[in-house]
Structure formats: structure tokens, C-alpha cells
């Protein structure tokens, strides 16, 4: 590469971009926008169109929100509102439904660790990896909602006032520790078949080499799982594991188990502090040599001018009856302004961003058609998909199998 090049186009400086899909968008009044298609939310066509739009924008992946209860404006309890979108489809199945219709983009559905079986989720995501030929991931989530525990009736979840209240620390720490065990089981099950376990040896009549199938024998504080999986090791070996965190406890989960963490910095200085904390936890977890992306989450209102974007946000806030706030910073402005913000945040150590379109039908196309070309002009984003797998897009090698006797030691040390 010539040192005289004004912009460094090397992949190293490329930002990663994901989009978080949730119903008609992240603003609670988004469904009332003319572009929103609220009556199509339960159709395959709606989701296929959104993911196709994201793929045209060359984005790394989409995440798909989910939950084991109706959406609610309250963080811990259900509400009785009829003026917002309620009801949704299972995110893993939405991802599987759009997988055969797309070719490059990663598909990362949300799974809730608290009330589900790691064995089922492991094979579901492995299978999503097969049906997408190597583009699957998961976003693991916990829930401390008592009403969701009542949907399963298998455990009581102690009522807390807020996830970050001191009284809730014990419960929340347990739920995240359980989620870490859950991901450990999911990952071991993905490795429980070595890549070459299926031998189809006609001479001996053996279909598999059973020495290459492994019991995982996981025993933890919360559950035990025997294995092996019923599904062979997926194309990526280990599909992408991601999680959202807002504090030290979830940062530890990211540090221990994730390939991508989503965080919600207020500003660049905060981003720098979060990244430093996660990197320290990563080192403490013995993973300092491994790639762990830290993505900043942003809600985006994108328009041709800042005034237009602000007017749209005001209009939606008026429809909703209150200003929209959430865990993530809200950006309101133009693609160029957003590109400036992303570049500045990248300087604080964020390696990518997960954008939450305020209105999916409006802001997602703006990401692909306005923001991406702007970043490309600045040499900060890919101009074509450069890899066939999601791990490949994120610069993650296909990992060696933890159970493989011939795994090169270097694969885990580097």
C-alpha cells in the first residue's frame, strides 16, 4: 500500500455496521408512519424486505429483537397499552425464514437464556447456520420480568424495582452467570461433533467415527447438560455470540463469552471508559488474545437535514404523547453528521455500531443509501461483501474445535 494514499482504505480502518430490527422501528409511535406497514408485521414478506434492504447496504448483520412476553413500555412489568405494537414472531424462525432469500448478510436473532433450553437453542442456531450457509449468530438476553416467569411456571423470579438497583444486584448477577453457563453449553454443543465426524465408511459400515463425537458433560450451578448435540458442527464452527450490556455484570458476560458486545455510551468519553472496562474484564477472563468487538448502539433518525430529522422526531414524540428515551443515545441528523459521530466514537475504541432505526421503513433505507455511501467515500466501509460467512465479515477466523485432539495449540493461544 502506498503511504501517499490520502485515505487508508485497508480493512483495518473499516467500521462494522449492524442494524437492530424491532417491529416497525424503535420509536413507539413508528408504526403510525405511512411507510411503517404495521399490518404486515406478522408476515414473512415484511421481514424479507427489511433484511434485503440491509443486505443492499452491505451491512454486516441484522439483529432481531424478541421476548417471552408482550412488549411493554415498562422495563419489568407488562402494560395495558393498546396504542403501541404488541405481539411478535419468534426471532430465530424469522431469521430462518429469510435465510434462503439472502446471501451475504449475517442473521442474529435474540434468544432468552432465562427460560429456555440451551440444547434446543444450540441446535436451532447451528441449523440457522446451515440454512444460511455460515451467517448465523445469536444475541443472548436475560429476563427478570416476573410476568415472563409466570408464562413458564417453572421458577419464581424475585420482583425487583430496576435492573440497576442495589437490591437487584444478586438476582441480576445470578441471571447473567446463568446466561454465561448457558452460552458455554451452547458453544460446547456446537463443538461436540468434530468437523470430520461423518465418515460414511462403506468398508466397516460406520456412518460416523464415534470417537469424534463428544459428551460435553457440563455441570454448573444452574443446570447440567450431557450432549453431544444431535446436530453436526455448523459451517462456521462457532456461530457468532453477541449480547447487550449496560454495566459491569453484563460486561463480564461479554468478556467471558461474546464475539460482539453492544454497549450504550452517552458520549465519546463514556465510550472510552466502557471499552477500557470490557478490555480489562476480557483480560481477566483469559481472552485477551481473542477478537471481541465492542459495538456502540445508537437510535437513529436520518434525514436530508437536521431540521427535518428533528421535526420527524418531534412529530413521533407528539403522537406517542411523550419524548422517546431509551437505554441508547439518540442521534437526529444527516448521514454526514452520523458518519462524523461514528468516526469520532471509533477513535474511542468502538469497532462497530448497531444502529436502531427509529422507523424501520424510513431509517433503515437511509442507513444503506445515505450513511453507507458516506462512509465508503471516507474509506471507512466495505464496497462489496468480502467474505462468505458472518465470522469472515467480522474478521474472525473459523475456530479450532475444543474437543479435537489435533487442534493446533496456536489456534487458541493467538
Amino acid at each position: 500500500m502506498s503511504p501517499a494514499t490520502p485515505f487508508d482504505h485497508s480493512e483495518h480502518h473499516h467500521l462494522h455496521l449492524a442494524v437492530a430490527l424491532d417491529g416497525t422501528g424503535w420509536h413507539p409511535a413508528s408504526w403510525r408512519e405511512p411507510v411503517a406497514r404495521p399490518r404486515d408485521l406478522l408476515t414473512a414478506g415484511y421481514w424479507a424486505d427489511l433484511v434485503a434492504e440491509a443486505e443492499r447496504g452491505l451491512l454486516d448483520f441484522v439483529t432481531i429483537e424478541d421476548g417471552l412476553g408482550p412488549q411493554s413500555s415498562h422495563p419489568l412489568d407488562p402494560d395495558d397499552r393498546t396504542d403501541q405494537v404488541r405481539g411478535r414472531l419468534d426471532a430465530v424462525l424469522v431469521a430462518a425464514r429469510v435465510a434462503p432469500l439472502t446471501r451475504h448478510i449475517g442473521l442474529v436473532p435474540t434468544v432468552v437464556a432465562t427460560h429456555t433450553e440451551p440444547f434446543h437453542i444450540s441446535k436451532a442456531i447451528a441449523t440457522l447456520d446451515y440454512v444460511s450457509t455460515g451467517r448465523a449468530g445469536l444475541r443472548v438476553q436475560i429476563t427478570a420480568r416476573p410476568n415472563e416467569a409466570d408464562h413458564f411456571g417453572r421458577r419464581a423470579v424475585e420482583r425487583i424495582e430496576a435492573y440497576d438497583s442495589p437490591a437487584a444486584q444478586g438476582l441480576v448477577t445470578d441471571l447473567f452467570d446463568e446466561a454465561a453457563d448457558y452460552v458455554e453449553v451452547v458453544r460446547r454443543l456446537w463443538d461436540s461433533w468434530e468437523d470430520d465426524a461423518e465418515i460414511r465408511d462403506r468398508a466397516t459400515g460406520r456412518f460416523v467415527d464415534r470417537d469424534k463425537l463428544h459428551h460435553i458433560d457440563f455441570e454448573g450451578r444452574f443446570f447440567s447438560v450431557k450432549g453431544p448435540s444431535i446436530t453436526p458442527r455448523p459451517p462456521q464452527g462457532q456461530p457468532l455470540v453477541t449480547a447487550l450490556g449496560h454495566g459491569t455484570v453484563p460486561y463480564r458476560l461479554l468478556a467471558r463469552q461474546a464475539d460482539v458486545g453492544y454497549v450504550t455510551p452517552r458520549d465519546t468519553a463514556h465510550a472510552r471508559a466502557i471499552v477500557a472496562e470490557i478490555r480489562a474484564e476480557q483480560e481477566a477472563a483469559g481472552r485477551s488474545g481473542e477478537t471481541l468487538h465492542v459495538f456502540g448502539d445508537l437510535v437513529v433518525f436520518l434525514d436530508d437535514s437536521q431540521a427535518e430529522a428533528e421535526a420527524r422526531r418531534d412529530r413521533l414524540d407528539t403522537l406517542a404523547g411523550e419524548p422517546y428515551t431509551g437505554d441508547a443515545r439518540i442521534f437526529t441528523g444527516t448521514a454526514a453528521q452520523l458518519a462524523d459521530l461514528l468516526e469520532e466514537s471509533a477513535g474511542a475504541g468502538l469497532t462497530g455500531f448497531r444502529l436502531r432505526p427509529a422507523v424501520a421503513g424510513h431509517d433503515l433505507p437511509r442507513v444503506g443509501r445515505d450513511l453507507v455511501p458516506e462512509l465508503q467515500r471516507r474509506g471507512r466501509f466495505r464496497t462489496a461483501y468480502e467474505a462468505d460467512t458472518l465470522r469472515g465479515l467480522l474478521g474472525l477466523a473459523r475456530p479450532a474445535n475444543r474437543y479435537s485432539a489435533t487442534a493446533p495449540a496456536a489456534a487458541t493461544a493467538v
Partner: protein
Amino acid sequence: MSKPLKQIHLAAHFPGVNNTTVWSDPAAGSHIEFSSFAHFARTAERAKFDFLFLAEGLRLREQGGKIYDLDVVGRPDTFTVLAALAAVTDRLGLTGTINSTFNEPYEVARQFASLDHLSGGRSAWNVVTSWDAFTGENFRRGGFLPQEERYARAKEFLATAHELFDSWGADEILADQAGGAFLRDARAGAFVHRGQHFDIRGRFNVPRSPQGRPVIFQAGDSDEGREFAAAGADAIFSRYSHLKEGQAFYADVKGRLAKYGRRPDQLLILPAATFVLGDTDAEAAELALEVRRQQVSGATALKHLELVWNRDLSAYDPEGPLPDVDPLVGEEHISRGRAQVRMYRDPLAIAREWRELAEANKWSIRDLVINTGNRQTFVGAPATVARTINEFVQADASDGFILVPHITPGGLDPFADKVVPLLQEQGVFRADYEGTTLRDHLGLAHPDSAAPAERAAS
């Protein structure tokens, strides 16, 4: 006036994890890659089949304490494959076998309701039960269930799932963009279920799907299983593919419907069936024997015999005579995670019978297994097979068949190309789909939606 001809229902069972599936054939492809499933589903849809069927197993089978390695091993996740298949098909029904022991109603109901939405009303659920601690070791919930409780749990599981499906009316979503009302009623999805196995309450989060509820299949054969099916299933996946026993099963199960206020056409009986086609009947018979030899290698024959003898027989020659030792009775069984074992209730009697058969026919161990095991249901030229299938259905031995090819993924192609057109010519199988949902294909009514008042009270 003779009675009108019944219309035949046909379905395609993706080749399973057992020795019916021949993996050693050069034509045998992957049973994991999505391209195999897509090929299989497209063939079934091209042939206007009612639905595709996926089985399930939640722990790799073991024999003699080791993972069983002679058959196809491994399978992808049922729901995930079916959702992906919805993208490459338009009309074909999508039936998944899902266990009621190692799952919870809220999650399964939302998966089936989601699949029904994502496929435009093509989902079906084959409800199976299980009770073994062996499989339970893969689950945080454990899952050991006394055998006598498995149908009680399955029944309550299904009833609970129905309450969840019915918790949303078809007209709950207004999405009135101008007026600002998304839901008609804040209580949409409300449910309370208090029972012996499930005590749950709250709000279901998947609105009413196109079929209202998935089509319900049942596969058990016990008296309890038959009663379970008569009470609430839409179809039975049965094992009786021979005429006399098929007729007896058909009459028995259809006879149970009246006491539940149901008509005979509200429960379809669909046996599993294998087939081998040839240009002539003689050629097909020859091919069938060849397929049996592929399905039963010497090693497979010994392992099969171990299921009855319940002891290690690896020292025996599969081409030699049957063991002279008797089966071990009453000890922990040598095989785990395999449904077949239940069929051998009196191993000593079976061993005696098999020895006599082998002696009379001068059969080796392998010959015996080839000749007494699952022989193909339909063997013949296409015209012979089409005629036999039609006779079977018109004689009330079934309402159709779930066909199990022995080759993945192309094993259904010859049936689609050669037998289906003959059935269509005879006017006993659809020339094209008439409806869009699986209920349409099977002639099943859309379930009545519960009125909002009942919903709140339930």
C-alpha cells in the same frame, strides 16, 4: 350407485435416523445441508403433496454404552428447517415432530404460531411424548416422567397450547395509523392455565395465525395414544401399512370419534410407507431385495439382533446361524434412545420364533433380519404401486400415506414423476392445490375462534 372415490392424501417423510435410510448408496447426499431439504420439499410440492414431515430425536442413540454408528446419525433442528423451507415452497404443508416432555407450552406455542404466520398457514405439529431419563440428561429440566404420566402431560400440554393459540382473536390487531389504536383490546393474549403439569398465566405474545392453530398429528399406537388422537388430533401417523391390520386400526380409531362429538372425516389416518419402483414388477422386486441388503449390513444385522437378545453379540458371524444363548431378560436394556425397543415385549418368544424361521429357511443372522425386518410397503412398477395405494385407501385401510424414501434427498423423485401422474389420471389425487393452507389440503375446518368473553374467563 357405488360410493364416490376418496381423495388420497400424500406426504413426504424426510429420510430418518434409522436403517431404512441407505447412506452407502452413491446417490445418497447430505441429510444435514439445507440443499437436501430444499430438494426434497420442492419435489414434494411439484408432486402436489399435502405436506412434508420431519421426525425428531433429542439424544444420539446408544447401544452397548456407545453411540450407535451404523445408521445415519444427526439431524438439524426441526423448527428452524421448517421455517427455512417455507421460503422455498408456497403450498406444501410443514409438519414437525415436537416432544411434549422436553419443552414448555408457551415456547412451543409461539414457535408453531410463528411458523404458521411465516408459512402463510402451513404448519402442523406431530405431538410426541417421551419419558426416558437418558434423553432428559440433555435438558436443564431433566425430564424423567413415569410412563403412565406421559400421556397425561402430553394431553395437558396440547390443551394448554390450544388455550394459548386461542388467546388471540383473529381481529385483535387494528393498526389504525390515523386513530392511533394498534390493539382492539388491551387483554389480547390473556390466559390462565392451572393444571397438574402446568400452572401458568399471563399473555401470549403471538397473535392469531392463519390456521388459528397448527394441524395436530399424533403418532402413538397404544390405547391411550389412540384415545388421545380421537379426542383432539387432526391426523394420525400410524404404522399399519398392510391391508387387514390397516382396516382394523382405521375402524378402531374412527369408531372412537363419535364419543367426542367428532365426525370420521375430522381425523385422517396416514400410515408410514416405504416403496421401491421398477420398470416391471419383477425388476422392482429385485431392486427391493438389493435395498434390503443395503439397509441391513452384517454389522447392522448383529446390532438388530442385540435389540432382542439384549447382550453383546459382536462375536457372532452375521452370515452364520442365530445365537444359541437366550436373550437377557429384565436387565437394563442394551439400547437407549430408540423407540423400537418397546416393540420387543417378550424376547424369549421372539428368539424362539426367529430360530425356527431361520432353521426352516436356512437363513443366516443377516438373512433373518433382512426377511423379518421392515420390508418395503409398496414394491412394483408405477402402475402396480398406484393401484395398490388406491385400493388401500378406497378399502378404508387409510386416508393416504406418509412416504418414507430410502435415499436422501432424491428418493422421492421417481414417485413424484411416475406414480403421482397415474393417481391424478385416476382422479384420486389433486392435479393442483386448491387452497393455500394445510387445513385446505387436508379438508379440515378452520378452528372456531373463542369469543372474547370466553377467552377472558378461561
